[in-house]
């Protein structure tokens, strides 16, 4: 299969205009007729919104804003790339570091400058061949159809020795997602028993972790950081396991080591910030979130989190009166609040977090009046609140509001989160330590058990028994949306299997009516919508 650029759309993303033109000339000599040039990532995103390109050649360095990798991430994340698009990253330096990091969004290849037309052609040809051969596998993988992917790999691998490693890598991922840990382990350890290949080493450690063999996992990742000191995944895993094993100080040191080697990593800086917070190390926490804000500037993965956390870390510093540069810090925090509003669309949760953070900040500056103003705003917002607050944010708000003396508000936010997330044992155990409502915790644990039991019965088609347990769970935790939806679903199933006996219908209607509101973006909204529709249909039948 000969690769041709003749009918293909190509986009060049390159800040150095002369070089862009020379690349275009190379493409023309390969028969390309439709070649566009943009000079930065932002324009590239706009171009990709308008047109789906077949080939994109992007420089990694694109000036002061988004770089090539960030561009790729944004395009991938927002679905602007067609699956057959070949994305080559043009780089000035050694590409190995990039190959090792950012595993999720990888270009189809890297090309180090300077290169000539022959090399470019060869690379495009190779990338095109590989994409073609691996098409069915890649499609199954990106649709998360793991068994399908395994079947495709079985077909493709024997006929294509060239792509054996890629196939094995995908096979590993599919097995892991299917929770076939033993097979996944065998695959990875067979490779590492022959040679030390970074991704396979990481895979071995990952399986140990998933099997909760934490000590073994730690050994693997310790070795990995020794043997491949620039493989940052090794440090990330090691830190994660050290936390799991109750070694938060070691985890912090590990993350700091990784960041020395590669500071520009948004997620890693945030993780360090969180670990440092746990360790009450406000200096490190502050610097980490500062870096997160800085490096998040051009990333599609930036979020209000790092801004809120940073204001909170600096406020903590300000509340210790021995500050010589408090003016600078105050300016910094004020700047952060401004940028927070500028850069992110304010949803209900972010507004609440922001107001609480502002209250905390003014309190730290001994401006009690202003603090009070923001606390009242917060109360107002919480009252009106329709969306669900995530577990992590509920812990943050509970802690901040307690410190600000608003115990009732703190408790009510936490209690609601406990009810909504009773099937998240990690969160419940953290919340249990903070909540004054031991009865609630006990109720939620019980509700969770009933819910699981009921689901089991439902799967065995034992609807009457399932209904009993869902009823019990719902009584204990009437706000929990998942339980409510499960309960309604079983009731409807019961009605259907009873040949139309509608005695359960009013119950179903009542439950749906009393559930907390779901907004359109909640993943359960579709389910809620559908159940509501069915209930309404049946209600109409009875009134006829």
């Amino acid at each position, binding site marked *: 299969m000969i690769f041709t650029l003749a009918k293909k759309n190509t986009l060049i993303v390159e800040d150095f205009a002369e070089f862009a033109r020379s690349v275009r000339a190379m493409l023309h000599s390969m028969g390309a007729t439709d070649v566009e040039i943009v000079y930065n990532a932002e324009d590239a995103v706009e171009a990709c919104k308008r047109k789906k390109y077949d080939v994109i050649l992007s420089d990694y360095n694109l000036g002061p804003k988004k770089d090539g990798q960030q561009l790729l991430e944004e395009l991938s994340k927002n679905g602007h790339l067609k699956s057959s698009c070949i994305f080559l990253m043009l780089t000035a330096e*050694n590409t190995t570091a990039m190959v090792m990091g950012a595993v999720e969004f990888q270009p189809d290849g890297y090309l180090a400058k300077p290169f000539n037309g022959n090399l470019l052609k060869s690379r495009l040809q190779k990338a095109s061949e590989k994409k073609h051969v691996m098409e069915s596998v890649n499609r199954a993988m990106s649709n998360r159809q793991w068994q399908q992917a395994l079947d495709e790999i079985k077909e493709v691998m024997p006929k294509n020795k060239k792509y054996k490693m890629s196939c094995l890598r995908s096979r590993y991922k599919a097995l892991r997602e299917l929770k076939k840990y033993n097979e996944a382990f065998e695959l990875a350890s067979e490779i590492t028993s022959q040679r030390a290949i970074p991704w396979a080493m990481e895979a071995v450690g990952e399986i140990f972790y998933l099997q909760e063999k934490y000590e073994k996992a730690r050994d693997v990742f310790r070795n990995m950081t020794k043997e491949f000191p620039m493989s940052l995944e090794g440090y990330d895993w090691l830190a994660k396991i050290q936390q799991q094993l109750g070694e938060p100080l070691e985890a912090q040191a590990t993350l700091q080591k990784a960041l020395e080697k590669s500071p520009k990593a948004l997620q890693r800086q945030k993780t360090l910030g969180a670990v440092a917070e746990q360790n009450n190390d406000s200096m490190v926490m502050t610097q980490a979130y500062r870096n997160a804000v800085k490096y998040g500037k051009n990333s599609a993965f930036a979020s209000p989190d790092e801004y809120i956390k940073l204001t909170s870390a600096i406020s903590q510093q300000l509340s210790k009166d021995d500050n010589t540069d408090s003016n600078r810090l105050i300016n910094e925090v004020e700047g952060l609040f401004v940028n927070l509003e500028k850069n992110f669309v304010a949803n209900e949760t972010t507004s609440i977090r922001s107001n609480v953070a502002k209250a905390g900040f003014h309190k730290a500056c001994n401006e009690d009046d202003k603090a009070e103003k923001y606390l009242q705003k917060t109360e107002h917002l919480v009252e009106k609140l329709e969306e669900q607050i995530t577990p992590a944010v509920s812990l943050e708000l509970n802690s901040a509001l307690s410190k600000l003396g608003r115990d009732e508000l703190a408790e009510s936010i936490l209690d609601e989160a406990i009810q909504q997330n009773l099937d998240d044992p990690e969160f419940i155990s953290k919340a249990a330590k903070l909540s004054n409502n031991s009865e609630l915790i006990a109720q939620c644990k019980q509700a969770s058990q009933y819910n699981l039991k009921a689901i089991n019965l439902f799967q065995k088609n034992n609807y009457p028994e399932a209904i009993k347990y869902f009823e019990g769970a719902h009584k204990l935790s009437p706000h929990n949306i998942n339980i409510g939806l499960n309960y309604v679903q079983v009731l409807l199933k019961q009605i259907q299997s009873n040949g139309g006996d509608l005695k359960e219908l009013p119950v179903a209607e009542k439950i749906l009516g009393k559930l907390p509101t779901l907004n359109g973006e909640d993943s359960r909204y579709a389910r809620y919508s559908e159940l509501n529709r069915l209930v309404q249909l049946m209600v109409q039948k009875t009134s006829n």
Partner: protein
Amino acid sequence: MKDNSESIFNMVLASTVHDMKNSLSMLGESLNLILSQVDPELLDEKTKDYHGVVQYESARVNNSLMQLLALYKFENEQLPFNPSYHNLSDFLEEQKLRHIPLLDAKSIDCEIDVDEEIEGIFDECLLSTVLENVIGNAIRYTKSAIKISCSQQQNTVIEIADDGPGYPEQMIVLAGDYMHGINQSTGSTGLGLFFAKKIASLHKHKEQIGCIRLSNGGELGGGRFELIIP
């Protein structure tokens, strides 16, 4: 946490390298474009020679840059090393492609002799940089032909042979052991071989460590460079 000035230097280094590479790319491409517009009949030997010089020298500067950068990172434990399985035929074909403009300009014949099926385990990017330098040198010193070959028994051996005058005795003995001062006649600082040896040694398996070997004679009768990796 590490000193801030170090990371500033890293950034300056990275952006300067980026800038220099762009310039070099432009030099090379511009020249190619100019020459492609000239009727080949009108190109005399001297012009072709100069074309070769520009290609060769800019490739050398670029390559030296890469090696310096890599060595700097190596000294600071910041050199990423990512070994993986690679098809050697594909890899070596690509190395040849990098030099096609120069090979054509100097009418040098470049043969590749590798079994299509064999794979090696190495860091593709780092070995690319090494071979680019070695092949570039071979082109500089050869008379008319270069041969790139690869064999595999216990180790993977990549060999670059030319039909030029061969390596001076001193080089063969030192084989990258240390960088000597600038050799006035050849302009060589030994950076290339020093780098090659360092990169080879990163490739380890059990007790075996990668290395390089220089010799004279070989199939083409000139210099012979061997890169041996486990």
